[in-house]
């Protein structure tokens, strides 16, 4: 009788598992979907995975493919450089909302305007997780964090960044822009597959923002975690494809 093995994607690097993310962290679900898609498209041997600083850097040894870890917010230009030097490789940039929307937003914006043929996955958990849960550009109005103990006041600190909306405004029509959530796993996997397919076919920029969970810094239990993600975050940040060169229902 064959021993039962966990349903880990084939592209995961198993000696580093269980991974280092907190219990209940959404990064594991996003990376599981990404691993599933890498297996499905059979691109493990030509994939370059780049991760940012922040909680997302804990994925540096996650995949059994070539990985790099870059300076804060500089995953986008590093991935663009690798893609320009070796256009046959598939480059996947993986970052958090701090790396993508605050310190790295210049690179994200310029790469989107130039329509670079890279895939970027941005995980949005509405705070800076690794440094202890401070306010991030995506913190919802009224949400309590370490640096906004009375709730974020939009009069004082402005409104949250809606990343896919602003990327969709500056990219041409052959870019792929979507927002997914970890509570809908099949949809998340479909969006990541479309984003990678867009890069493989050489169409243009592919960007997927994923709404994720952070029970450690939200100070929530499992039930409150799902409530905050599904009822508050998905209400403020609408989930769906904003720009899809494959047309509606492209699967």
């Amino acid at each position, binding site marked *: 009788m064959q021993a039962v093995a*966990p*349903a880990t994607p084939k592209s*995961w690097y198993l*000696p580093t598992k269980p991974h280092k*993310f907190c*219990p*209940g*962290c959404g990064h594991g*679900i996003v990376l599981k979907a990404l691993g599933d898609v890498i297996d499905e498209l059979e691109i493990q041997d030509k994939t370059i995975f780049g991760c940012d600083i922040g909680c997302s850097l804990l994925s540096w040894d996650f995949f059994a493919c070539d990985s790099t870890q870059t300076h804060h917010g500089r995953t986008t230009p590093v991935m663009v450089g690798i893609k320009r030097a070796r256009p046959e490789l598939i480059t996947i940039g993986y970052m958090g909302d701090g790396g993508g929307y605050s310190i790295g937003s210049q690179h994200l914006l310029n790469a989107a305007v130039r329509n670079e043929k890279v895939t970027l996955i941005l995980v949005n958990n509405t705070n800076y997780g690794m440094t202890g849960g401070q306010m991030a550009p995506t913190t919802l109005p009224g949400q309590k964090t370490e640096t906004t103990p009375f709730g974020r006041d939009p009069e004082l600190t402005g409104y949250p960044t809606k990343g896919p909306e602003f990327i969709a405004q500056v990219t041409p029509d052959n870019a792929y822009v979507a927002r997914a959530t970890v509570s809908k796993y099949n949809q998340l996997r479909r969006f990541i597959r479309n984003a990678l397919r867009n890069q493989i076919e050489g169409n243009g920029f592919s960007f997927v923002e994923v709404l994720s969970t952070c029970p450690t810094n939200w100070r929530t239990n499992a039930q409150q975690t799902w409530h905050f993600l599904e009822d508050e975050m998905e209400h403020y940040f609408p989930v769906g494809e904003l720009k899809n060169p494959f047309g509606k229902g492209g699967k």
Partner: protein
Amino acid sequence: MSKELKPITFPMEKAVFYIFPDYCKGCGLCKEKCPNGVLVWSEKLGVYGTPTVKPKDEDSCIACNICEMVCPDCAILIERIRQKKAL
């Protein structure tokens, strides 16, 4: 090479539920996401010394696979049992 992982097996009516305590961190996302409320805390401890989950009975699981999908650590494996067609 990674070490061999030993699952705890719970055979049920429509599926076999495997939980790998070496991967389970006890976050409880699967327990809250289950549409039928099948999962409960078990006495077995996971990798962080937190309780793992187990199905409460044999007939309430509908084999929808949602717990396997939302597990960030791939600690759950659902194996559907092919139903015999009624004659």
